[in-house]
Each structure stands twice: as structure tokens, then as C-alpha cells.
């Protein structure tokens, strides 16, 4: 094995790239959960978003339109989820699972005719002066636009949830939907909005090429990161980079030819998720999380 083949700078740089989809998905789920809705369909939405992204970007030849296509796919799926859980009052856990199973089938169906396609990549966005910085430049400022968009979105969600009135109302609906309803806030409408917004975020996934089951549990890891972050947006960043780090590191170790069989290394992100959930889950979930709201009572 040759550990010197692993370049720590490149490792950190690829960590930022690898964790972006999980970060975005966790961010979307965080907004949904702060509104009191547990959407377990993240995996299905991510994989459908990835398939839509490939289809749109291949057909239009534009990476940003692919991005929009992924969001559109997520919007449609989350609309289904919102109708079922908010209007037809179905069980959120079961509906989320249904969404995942449905999404896995849908993405396989949509994507397989694009199996060989190579969607256009995002142009690299070297930030002029900053990317020339000695160490930091290589790690943080030579990525494509999506990495920066992800970071900006985290800030935007943090600002929205903690510094705006609308964010306060959304959190109130999540903490106690009966009280929010009594105050005259349209609980169902707000949740509908949160689910759709979250759905668009969750599905912003970009993969280099279509393969079946391409998200490989990233959606579930995103759900775990929300718990790990204690439902706080800025802590999501830490969680996502941690898991991105484990994933990138194990891939690098595989490439370096560590004496452990590949399968055991591939397990590590999932095992790490469990360990982190056990040790660090300290936050308190929103009070009405996962409960069905019906105004009659």
C-alpha cells in the first residue's frame, strides 16, 4: 500500500465536491422537518432528481438546465408526498417509504435509456484572486459553481429560519401545530410549501453517469445528518463534510490498495453514520415532527 499517493489537499478539495449533494438534500429535509413533517422519501427523490438531471442536461447540453430539471423532478415527487400526507392525511413514515420505493423504480425507468450518456459537466469556476492562494486556494476555491451554490443556500436557509418572521412561523408550525392553528396560521399550506421547497433542494443531485441505484443510500445518510445536526442549518455543514470526508477517504484508501478488502472499506460511511448517530445526536426534534394534523379537533 502506498499512503503517500493520497494528496491531502486534493482529498479536502474532493471532500467539498463529494458532500455537496448530501448537504443540499439534508438542507431540504431540515426545512421540511422544521415544519413538522418527516419525509422519509429523500432517497427516492434524490435518485429521481439525479435521473432527471442527466436527462435534462444531456438533452439540452447545459449543466445548469440539468440542475433545473433535477429540481423539477423533486418538485413533482414532493407534490405527491404533500397531497398524500397533508390532504389525504396518510401516515408520514409509510408515505415516505412509498416515495422511496416509487422513486427507485421511476429513476430506473427514466434513466436506463440514458445509460451511456455523458451529461455535460459544470464549468470550473476558479475564483480569480482567491484560487491562487497557496493551500486554501486549491482546497476551497477551484470548484464548479454548484459547490458555492450549496454553501450559499445553507446560509440562506439559516437566515430564513432564524432571522425572518416567515421562518419563525414555519418553526412554530413544526413545534406545535395545534397552537399555530389556533393563532390562525394556515398549517397545511405552510407545510405544503415547506415540503415542495425541500423537495426541490433534496433532488439537486448531479452524477457523472447513470447507473442503477446510483445514490446508494446517500438519501438516508442525509436524513441522519439532519438528526446529527440537531435540526440546525449551520451544523449541517459539519455533518455533511464529515460524511463526505469518510466517503472520500475510503475511496482513496481503496485506490491506494489498503490490505483490507474493498467491501469492508465501502461499509465505512454507513457504519460511521450509525456511530455518529449514537454518540452525537444531542438536539431536540421539532415537537410536532411526524404527527398528522387535522383541524377538526
Amino acid at each position, binding site marked *: 500500500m502506498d499512503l503517500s499517493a493520497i494528496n491531502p489537499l486534493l482529498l479536502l478539495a474532493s471532500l467539498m465536491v463529494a458532500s455537496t449533494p448530501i448537504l443540499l438534500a439534508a438542507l431540504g429535509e431540515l426545512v421540511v422537518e422544521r415544519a413538522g413533517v418527516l419525509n422519509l422519501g429523500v432517497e427516492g427523490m434524490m435518485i429521481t432528481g439525479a435521473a432527471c438531471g442527466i436527462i435534462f442536461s444531456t438533452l439540452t447540453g447545459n449543466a445548469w438546465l440539468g440542475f433545473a430539471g433535477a429540481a423539477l423532478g423533486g418538485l413533482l415527487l414532493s407534490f405527491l408526498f404533500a397531497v398524500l400526507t397533508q390532504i389525504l392525511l396518510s401516515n408520514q413514515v*409509510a408515505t415516505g417509504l412509498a416515495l422511496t420505493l*416509487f422513486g427507485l*423504480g421511476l429513476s430506473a*425507468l427514466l434513466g436506463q435509456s440514458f445509460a451511456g450518456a455523458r451529461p455535460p459537466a459544470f464549468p470550473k469556476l476558479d475564483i480569480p484572486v482567491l484560487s491562487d492562494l497557496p493551500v486554501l486556494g486549491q482546497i476551497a476555491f477551484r470548484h464548479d459553481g454548484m459547490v458555492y451554490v450549496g454553501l450559499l443556500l445553507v446560509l440562506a436557509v439559516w437566515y430564513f429560519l432564524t432571522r425572518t418572521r416567515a421562518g419563525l412561523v414555519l418553526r412554530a408550525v413544526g413545534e406545535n401545530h395545534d397552537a399555530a392553528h389556533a393563532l390562525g396560521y394556515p398549517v397545511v399550506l405552510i407545510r405544503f410549501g415547506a415540503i415542495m421547497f425541500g423537495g426541490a433542494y433534496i433532488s439537486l443531485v448531479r452524477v457523472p453517469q447513470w447507473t442503477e441505484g446510483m445514490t446508494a443510500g446517500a438519501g*438516508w445518510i442525509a436524513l441522519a445528518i439532519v438528526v446529527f445536526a440537531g435540526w440546525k442549518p449551520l451544523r449541517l455543514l459539519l455533518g455533511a463534510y464529515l460524511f463526505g470526508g469518510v466517503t472520500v477517504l475510503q475511496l482513496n484508501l481503496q485506490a491506494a490498495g489498503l490490505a483490507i478488502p474493498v467491501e469492508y472499506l465501502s461499509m465505512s460511511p454507513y*457504519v460511521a453514520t450509525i456511530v455518529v448517530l449514537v454518540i452525537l445526536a444531542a438536539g431536540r426534534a421539532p415537537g410536532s415532527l411526524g404527527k398528522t394534523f387535522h383541524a377538526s*379537533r
Partner: protein
Amino acid sequence: MITLERRPQPSRTWSFLSPLLAVVVTMVAGGIVFAALGKPPVEAIRTIFWDPLFGDFAGYFRPQLLVKAAPLILIAIGLSFGFRAGIWNIGAEGQYIMGALFGAGFALAFYPSEARWLIFPLMIVAGTLGGLLWAMIPGILRVRFKTNEILVSLMLVYVADFLLDAMALGLLRNPEGMGFPGSRNLQQYPAAHNAELITNTGMHWGVIAALFAVVAAYILLSRHIFGFNVRLAGQSPRAAAFAGVSANRMVLICLGLSGGLAGMAGMFEVAGPSGQVLASFNVGYGFTAIIVAFLGRLHPLGILLAGLLMALTYIGGELAQMNLQLPRSAIQLFQGMLLFFLLAVDVMTNFRIRFGRREVA
């Protein structure tokens, strides 16, 4: 103005009707999807639901029905207890894999043995234990550290999946297999083979175990205090706590039960229809069983019927793949849709639709 009014009690009529309605709606929606794919919709639906049972080559497909339904029913019966009590084990796929690994591993450790009377029963025990232990991980973490059992049990599916790959390539690989991945074929190991009991029926020991589980679950749920406690814990956790039902013990029992049954299903599968420990061994029964459990209304007899129906979609799906070149993913989509529509139609069980103006409270 249309409003929903909560029924004082869930409607019995609708709880029977809604699965049937969901199946019909799914067939219509599925037909539309098939038509969009450029396949004849009516023929596709007939190929999936009719031909395996009554078509030209039905004799070949009918035994498959029991073979495919047995693991689905076994797993779903186990899951139904947890789902009733609000304990969400969605990692049955992982427990199924671990059951297969334990069962096959035990049998292969004693290869070549002649003592079927010893090996086969102990394989069942080992398989059950494998699934049970794997399910205890989320159980103990939940009880001890309040870790979410949904996430942990699911993460363990991926871990088990990689473990299966590692075993097929490493420890359990057939030493006489010319370096190909995969274990010895248990079908050629008489002491461990879970063979067909009656020729051309598909009946094997796993089917008998599934039927036994249905009867046992029915008695447990309707006649035994444990079943009552499960229902109580699900409908009113506070009342259950006052009645002295330990929530922690309920978590462990429900997870253990579902894990054990999933492990047993995995062991019967690897020793019989599948035969080998291979990376491609698991085909998602653990996830489909979730649909089966809900479609069967978490009731043992309902699960029996739902399991047979889902098995039919697997077989019909394969047939449609061959005859109509319908992609395999279309069947997966179809199964997901079924759960969706079921949950949507289910609103009628708990609510009544009122037309007209909403009264001022």
C-alpha cells in the same frame, strides 16, 4: 366545499375495500404507464396478473408463486407487529441477508456432512439467530441511546449487502469453484438443501414456515395478551405505559421478531431456490415486504393474500420482461405505486367525506 370528518371508529367496510380499490387503481395507472412506454396496456396487465396463473405455460409459473410469496409473507408477518406498535424496522432486507449468511455459513462449516436431521434444523436456528442479532443492533441502540431505529436499521442494510459481497468473494467462496465468486451450491449438499417437498408445487420448508407464521400471528394478535399490548402500544403509548407495558421491551421484542423471521426467510431462500451465497442473492424482498404488510392491513390473513399478489407481480413482471420487453424497473415502479394508492385510498377508512358548508365549531 369538501371536508373530511374523522370517523369515531375506523370503517370496517373500507378497511376491506381500500386494498382492493388500490389494486384496481394501480392497474389503471400502471396501464397508462405501460401505454406511455409504447406497450399494449391491456395485454401487459393480463401478462402480469393472468398469464402466470392461467396462461399457456402456467404449469411452469404456478409453483413459483409459493416460492416467491413465502419469504415475502414471512418477513411481512414479522414487520406487521412492529408497524402496529409504531416501531419501524425498515432494514428487513439486511436481516434477510444476515439470516442467509448465518444459515449457509453454518451448513458450509460442516460440509460435507450426511446428518440432515441435525444440519437442517440447526441451519434454521442459525438463520433465525442471524436476522435476530442483526435486528438487535437498532433495537439496543434505540433502547440504550434513543437512536432512531429507522435510520440505523436501514444503514445496516448497506452494511449487510457489502458483507454479503465480501463473503461471496472471501470466507464462503467455493474452494472448488475455479475462482468464481459465490459459495458451494447448497442444492447439491443434501444435508442442507431446502428441497421442494411435493414436485411441481413450489412447496418447500419455507412455505410451511410462512403458513405457520400466519396462523401463529393470528392467534397471538387476537387471543394473546402480547398481541393486545402491541395494539395498545401503537394506538395509545400513554395508556400502554400506564397498563405496565414496557416500551423498551416492546421495541426489543418487535425488532427481534421481525429480524428473526426475516433471517429465517433468508436462510430458506439461500438453502433452496437460490442455493448460493452470491452478491446478487438479495432482490429486495425485505423492502417489498413493507408493501405486503401494509397492503395486508397488518393483519395475518391479509398479509397472506397480499404476499401472494406481490409474488404474482414478480412472476408476471418476469414474464412481461420476456414477452413484451417491459423493463424490470416498470414492475418496481408498479409496486411502489400500489403502496402510494393504498395510502391515498386509506383516507376513507379513518375519515368520512362531507360535502357542503363546514359548520362553525
